[in-house]
């Protein structure tokens, strides 16, 4: 009887070891390699790299994570990739130079920013058809859909505006002036706020979604980093709205912002020209694409530490994470 204990203990131990931590699959678009890097987020190992369309940038997973959408800007299309086989299975008519896009909460409609044509193309994914083109400001880039499904917001880099598009009528109903060169837009999970990053101003504008008025413009200051290097791009806000994370571009830092008080609480050093961010599905990690140092930094959000930076390929741009 007593002998069985060590054995039982041993088997318990090995059982414990055999349970893998949640394995994230991280997809990264490589702007210069015309490829998609697939990384195991838990181990931080590059699994494989597949060739896709030209100048891939925006990336997002479909509702059930079976399909991956990639904006191949210079191929003028949105490519559909099957996440199981990693084969390109289709394409969506995005019109010219798609850079970024957003999906509605149901995952049935896609809104694409056409940077050169100053338009937002609305695509019905099931029918693979463009159903409308909405004229917006000059050089639209950031695009966001509120989780309550009411709003689609497009930000235009040159007009310096956030255009509020009613998702039912697909018409612009309001505009909010934001700081110069808005890059990225995202709603909080409760759809109450819109956050827009402004590259040249080096700020993030927080807008009340009900009044469409600016609540606050968050600015950043990093000891030892010149102000013009602080160029905010990607923003991720946790669903509980505890913290927001802002990629600061050539400042090589991710800013941690208290999402309630809207104060910056910390800066984390990551790779060069950090561009876009994504959470792991369990919200324990954050992945950053670092465009110039050609790697992805993995941040442990529980311990608030950058764990490692993994080389993925030339000019990593966008990132999506599958559970």
């Amino acid at each position: 009887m007593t002998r069985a204990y060590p054995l039982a203990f041993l088997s318990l131990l090995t059982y414990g070891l055999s349970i893998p931590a949640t394995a994230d699959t991280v997809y990264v678009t490589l702007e210069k390699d015309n490829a998609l890097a697939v990384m195991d987020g838990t181990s931080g190992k590059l699994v494989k790299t597949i060739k896709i369309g030209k100048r891939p940038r925006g990336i997002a997973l479909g509702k059930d994570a079976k399909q991956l959408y990639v904006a191949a800007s210079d191929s003028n299309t949105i490519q559909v990739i099957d996440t199981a086989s990693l084969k390109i299975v289709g394409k969506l008519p995005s019109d010219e130079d798609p850079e970024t896009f957003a999906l509605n909460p149901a995952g049935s409609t896609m809104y694409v920013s056409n940077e050169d044509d100053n338009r937002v193309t609305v695509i019905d994914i099931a029918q693979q058809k463009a159903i409308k083109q909405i004229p917006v400001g000059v050089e639209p880039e950031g695009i966001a859909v509120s989780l309550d499904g009411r709003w689609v917001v497009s930000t235009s880099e040159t007009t310096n505006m956030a255009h509020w598009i009613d998702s039912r009528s697909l018409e612009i109903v309001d505009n909010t002036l934001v700081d110069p060169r808005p890059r990225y837009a995202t709603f909080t999970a409760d759809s109450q706020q819109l956050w827009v990053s402004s590259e040249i101003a080096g700020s993030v504008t927080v807008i009340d979604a009900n009044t469409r008025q600016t609540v606050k413009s968050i600015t950043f200051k990093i000891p030892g980093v010149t102000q013009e290097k602080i160029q905010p791009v990607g923003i991720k806000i946790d669903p509980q709205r505890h913290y927001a994370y802002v990629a600061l571009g050539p400042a090589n830092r991710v800013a941690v912002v208290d999402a309630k008080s809207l104060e910056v609480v910390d800066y984390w050093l990551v790779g060069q020209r950090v561009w876009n961010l994504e959470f792991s599905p369990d919200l324990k990690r954050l992945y950053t694409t670092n465009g110039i140092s050609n790697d992805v930094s993995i941040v442990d959000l529980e311990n608030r530490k950058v764990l490692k930076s993994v080389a993925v390929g030339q000019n990593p741009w966008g990132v999506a994470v599958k559970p």
Partner: protein
Amino acid sequence: MTFLHYLRALLGIVKRELFRFVHQRERFVSALVRPLLWLFIFAAGFRSTLGVAIIPPYETYILYEVYITPGLVAMIQLFNGMQSSLSMVYDREMGSMRILLVSPLPRWFLLICKLLAGTLVSVLQAYAFLAVAWFYGIQAPPEGYLGLIPALLLTGLMLGSLGLLLSSFIKQLENFAGVMNFVIFPMFFLSTALYPAWKIQESSELLYRLALYNPFSQAVELIRFALYGKFASDPAIYVTIALLIFLAAAIVGYNPSKGMMQRKAGP
């Protein structure tokens, strides 16, 4: 001569050194303030200089203060090693060394005891510094702080035996300034403590070679890897060999019939 004799001598010497460490508050404070000045003032000015490359054992980009922390730990040990050599000279001048030397135990054993005692003091100083650094935000993984102990013992013994060797050459206390100029500064600045090897190589191949062969660099690298829970075998071997050479030379140096003391005692 039994084992107990040896043990009693070892404990006695270690106790004396620890007492000295506890009672000389200024020495402890200065041992702590020196690396902290480097960390808070010097490193702050260069914060972002290293954000361009990933150097093992680090797995991501680090701030300069994170980089120089292991180097500053080694600096504590370097100063401590030189300081205990200074105290040997002092003991010799003041005559308290005679008390030690009348012991019937072999001299090499007494020297090793002295060395161990000094090393233990340097380990305490290093952890005190790392504790302050921890609150400053320089935090290594927990296993690193444990794995650091054997590394610090080895590097402390090596730098201490270098100090012992030097003390066998130094006749007077005043000569310690020479040790600062000709040993501490070159060893510290020509090492990987303040800048990574590849940075030195960018400016000069010769300096890079010299830095690599500098035993202090190897000590720094051993400490750096250990602090991140990794064992660096090459620096470990290098430091061990340096320790054996310095220690053997120091033992010869302190041998009254062959060593430097005899010759120095002079006419």
